[in-house]
């Protein structure tokens, strides 16, 4: 009898666990793919010079990514999804900002060199004697 009841309890627990699992699956899955995408985006931003050129944007992205990963570990799908999406767009903005700064700097330098070249060329075309 005692043995029977113990078996019954075990069986119920298994069923409950299955249900719980199904319930979790049914609501929102853990967004591992989104987190992976965000992670790659952060790495791209780091390679694009964001640590120097867009440190605030990059810090925000890293923070959101960390939160998304923690939420995933805690099996909290909703916050994991939210933070992963934010981390991705933050990282993209960090990368774009870094590229913007670099392009701007290059354009300024180009303008300066062109100005020098033009004035030099103007001097050269005028007779020197």
């Amino acid at each position, binding site marked *: 009898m005692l043995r029977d009841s113990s078996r019954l309890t075990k069986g119920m627990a298994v069923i409950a666990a299955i249900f719980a699992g199904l319930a979790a699956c049914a609501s929102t899955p853990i967004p591992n793919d989104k987190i992976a995408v965000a992670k790659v985006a952060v790495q791209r931003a780091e390679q694009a010079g964001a640590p120097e050129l867009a440190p605030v944007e990059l810090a925000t992205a890293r923070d959101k990514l960390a939160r998304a990963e923690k939420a995933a570990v805690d099996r909290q799908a909703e916050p994991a999804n939210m933070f992963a999406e*934010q981390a991705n*767009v933050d990282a993209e903005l960090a990368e*774009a*900002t870094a590229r913007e700064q*670099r*392009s701007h700097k290059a354009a300024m330098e180009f303008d300066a060199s062109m100005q020098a*070249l033009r004035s030099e*060329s103007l001097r050269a075309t005028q007779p020197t004697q």
Partner: protein
Amino acid sequence: MNTNLFNGIGLTGMGLALALSACVSTPQPNAALENARIAVQTAEADPNVAKYAALDLETAKNDLAAAEDAQMHHHDAAVDQPAYLAAQNARLAQARASAKADDARVAAGQTERDQIMLAARTREVQNAKMAANAAKMETNAAMAATTEALGQRDQAAEEAARLQAEVDALKAKPTPRGLVMTLGDVLFDTGKAMLNPGAARKLDQLAQFLNEHPDRRVQIDGFTDSVGTDSYNEDLSRRRADAVKAALTMRGIDASRIGTQGYGKAYPVADNNDSGGRQLNRRVEVVIGEDNGSAISPRSGS
């Protein structure tokens, strides 16, 4: 009872009214949504975004629309996330557009830069060529000048040597007035102005010299000894000088190059007290001028 009923209705009505007002009233202001609207508007106003980041702007607009929709349906929990994404995507659009605009400007300028640099290089090459040519010409000119100078030196040396040889042949002596060749008395018959045939060789030499040096003038001065009157002597000396001039003219020398003068017994070169001295004094001096054609000064002093 009546009051109770009334109260009940009143309470219920108020509850209904509240619920209705909540439905109809404008949604509560949401900071994230407001932020997103401003970000999207700013991106829309940026001309670079339309040109270079239209897709990013579209994403931002879709996010904003989702946020607005959630707000309209009081699904407050679903507003913040799309609002945040909208704002970030709008900024992303601007950053990407700005970078692309700068890159495009540099790429376009590169062509102009290449042209300027090409022009500068072409000019440099031309300048170098011109400098090389100028240097070459200078070298050539210097070499030509050296050659010419050497030639002139040679020519001058030859000229001097030949002149010397000719002068030697004429037995002329250099004096301050020029080269002086003396035709002695023996070339004239006594008391006559006629040149005897023995003078011909000397006159041929003189004429040849004058033909070879057409720039030189010649002055012919006649002299006598102290025997006889002055007028006779001056006349004789002049006639002898004229005779030499005529002989030279016959040999092709232009008369305008020849001056004559009779000095009579003046300017003796020897003692008139003995016959030998008197013979030396009876003479005709031919003065050959400089090769610049300058006139020969008349005889003066002793």
